[in-house]
């Protein structure tokens, strides 16, 4: 599944962001084009590889002095493996889109450089400051910026208006609180005579991410900012997991056992559930395939609204020449410019990464005709950083196991989270500052 870019630009784009000319001039030093390799992941549905290929083609048309080879590398985990193996083999890519939460591991492997080291002009600094602060949280450490937001998302609630109507609920009124979501889910389940589930929250793939949303809605943040401590066994976290489990156990609004991340969109499209929690990155795919009326809302609240951000950031790698780093910067600035960010958001459902993106004509028009496109952005003010710590793989796995153990009835939420805390503490014991 390798998508090689043709060297000859095939399409010429007329959209040229003026602020890029500086970077372009810098990169034009030799006659040979600078060659860049970039790995990128796709974690949701839809033909996103085509979208990326088109963007890269447009870029190459505008910048004949830079060749970008964009390689689709699978999901976030696969992409990390591909990039890390390439680095170990001495064939480091110049840049990649990787999981925003890979930050700590990449720093520990001494693989990436901070953007602050490359930024020279005021204009470049302005670009670095142009993104939503909520999306920068996962990309910064000790005051340095290592990750530039690109395919970023929050979790949103998709609801089936037709199903709500059949169940005698107001089709325009999504659940505002945990209690409402449980009640509405149970109502749908009952009205359908057991044919349709009320709500599904995926518990494979990225269970820790969904759990973070529940915990944050209950006013609890699961980790310290420096990534050296986690707080899984806090009573607020236990309560959050108890609520998640109760959706199946008590309210009979959600099926027992774990719910598969990969098939969940299909579940929603085939109307086997009236509500799902999923990445906003699915929005365009759902819109294209749904043959019923659906809405998108912020997640319900307990004590506050909330969703972790998620998704992928651009990283710059070490062991590359200065010329390559500048060219990579040029490319990243182009990809994250308001026009590109707007186009990317429209094609996928991922968020426009900067306020300017939502001020572009294209995205304004799109949001007007399709208001769900703005939900993820509006929710951003209630956002929190995605779970990111040192030893991230182990820590996330410990929490994933706890969530699954509780949902499948192997342990109580409290037992499961206590065990996860113990495992995470063991993994982090060398990092306490």
């Amino acid at each position, binding site marked *: 599944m390798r998508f090689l870019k043709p060297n000859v630009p095939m399409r010429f784009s007329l959209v040229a962001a003026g602020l890029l000319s500086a970077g372009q001039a810098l990169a034009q030093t030799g006659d040979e084009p600078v060659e860049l390799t970039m790995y990128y992941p796709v974690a949701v549905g839809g033909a996103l590889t085509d979208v990326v290929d088109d963007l890269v083609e447009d870029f190459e048309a505008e910048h004949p002095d830079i060749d970008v080879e964009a390689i689709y590398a699978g999901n976030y985990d696969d992409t990390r493996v591909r990039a890390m193996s390439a680095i170990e083999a001495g064939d480091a890519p110049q840049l990649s889109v990787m999981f925003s939460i890979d930050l700590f591991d990449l720093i520990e492997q001494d693989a990436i450089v901070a953007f602050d080291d490359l930024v020279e002009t005021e204009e470049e600094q302005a670009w670095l400051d142009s993104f939503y602060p909520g999306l920068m949280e996962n990309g910064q450490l000790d005051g340095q910026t290592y990750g530039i937001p690109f395919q970023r998302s929050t979790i949103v609630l998709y609801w089936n208006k037709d199903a709500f109507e059949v169940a005698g609920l107001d089709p325009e009124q999504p659940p505002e609180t945990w209690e409402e979501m449980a009640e509405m889910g149970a109502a749908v389940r009952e009205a359908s005579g057991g044919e349709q589930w009320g709500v599904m929250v995926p518990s494979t793939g990225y269970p820790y991410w969904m759990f973070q949303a529940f915990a944050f809605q209950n006013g609890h943040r699961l980790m310290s900012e420096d990534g050296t401590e986690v707080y899984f066994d806090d009573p607020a976290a236990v309560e959050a997991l108890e609520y998640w489990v109760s959706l199946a156990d008590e309210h009979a609004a959600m099926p027992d056992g774990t719910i598969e991340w990969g098939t969940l969109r299909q579940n929603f499209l085939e109307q*086997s559930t009236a509500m799902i929690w999923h990445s906003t990155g699915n929005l365009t795919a759902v819109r294209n395939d749904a043959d019923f009326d659906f809405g998108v809302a912020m997640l319900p609240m307990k004590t506050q609204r909330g969703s972790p951000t998620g998704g992928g950031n651009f990283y710059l790698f070490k062991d590359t020449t200065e010329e390559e780093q500048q060219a990579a910067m040029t490319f990243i600035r182009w990809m994250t410019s308001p026009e590109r960010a707007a186009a990317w958001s429209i094609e996928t459902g991922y968020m426009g990464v900067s306020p300017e993106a939502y001020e572009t004509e294209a995205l304004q028009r799109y949001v007007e005709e399709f208001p769900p496109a703005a939900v993820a952005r509006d929710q951003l003010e209630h956002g929190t950083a995605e779970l990111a710590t040192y030893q991230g793989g182990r820590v996330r796995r410990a929490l994933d196991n706890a969530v699954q153990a509780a*949902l499948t009835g192997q342990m109580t939420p409290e037992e499961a989270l206590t065990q996860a805390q113990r495992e995470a503490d063991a993994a982090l014991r060398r990092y306490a500052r």
Partner: protein
Amino acid sequence: MIQNADRRMQIYGALLLLPAAVLLATFAYLPTVATLVNSLFLPGFRGEPATFVGLENYQLLIEDDTFWQVARNNLLYALGTIPTSIALALGMALLVNARLPGRGFVRMAYFTPTILPMIAAANIWMFFYAPQIGLFNALLGWLGLPGVNWLGDPGVALGSVIVMTVWKEAGFFMIFYLAALQSIPPELEEASNLEGTSRWSFFWRVTFPLLMPTTLFVLINALINAVRVVDHLFILTKGGPNNATNLLLYYVYENAFSFFDRTYAATITVVILLVLAVVATVKFTVLDRRTHYQ
């Protein structure tokens, strides 16, 4: 003069062995040694070089509950997949070796799962298993039975993975049995028909013993696959729920690439290698004595 010719033959022999020896050393023995050496180190903390810790990783491994659970899963997985897929392969081979209408089509149908890449097969099966929209629960629904959360219930998930693996592997093993069946001389059957041997005893007394070399080969292959092929886990369960379907090699992968703990991954690999070596040795020494090569 004779000595000289002898010597030349030796050099000639050694040269013939050389390409294989070089390839094996580069891609099998050197990595094995490197893995063994790696397993004696701890990864460096924050960019420091790795530190030698002797057998500490092995100590950690013994205390690691997840490792034991994963090892148990893998044992169940092997016990679930190997005998079933071999028996099924033999049955299918006997069937399509006999005269039956549309034989070519049936053979192809049995072999199709083998041609599919594991990842593609797993993606198809994920939708078979999907609780609300999947094929299996739809079938159960027609029978009026409640659906099962095939991959999401820790009590069922490993069984679901096993069933898919058997489906995938049986057709491949069938090909070996089919080839072996066709190399059995027809005189044997004619002779036994003259003697009035029943088909049942002909199978057990003649066919099955003659198939023993194939069975041994298939057995070893099935064992290797039970440890070596975990592609489907990436799609179906990612080792979950709560490690219920985690297998040894997937655990190695997680440690090496999700947890960046290469040395612990190396430790598990060494243990896997040891166990496989022991099992393979036992198989060859015990079964070889009962195997009749023609």
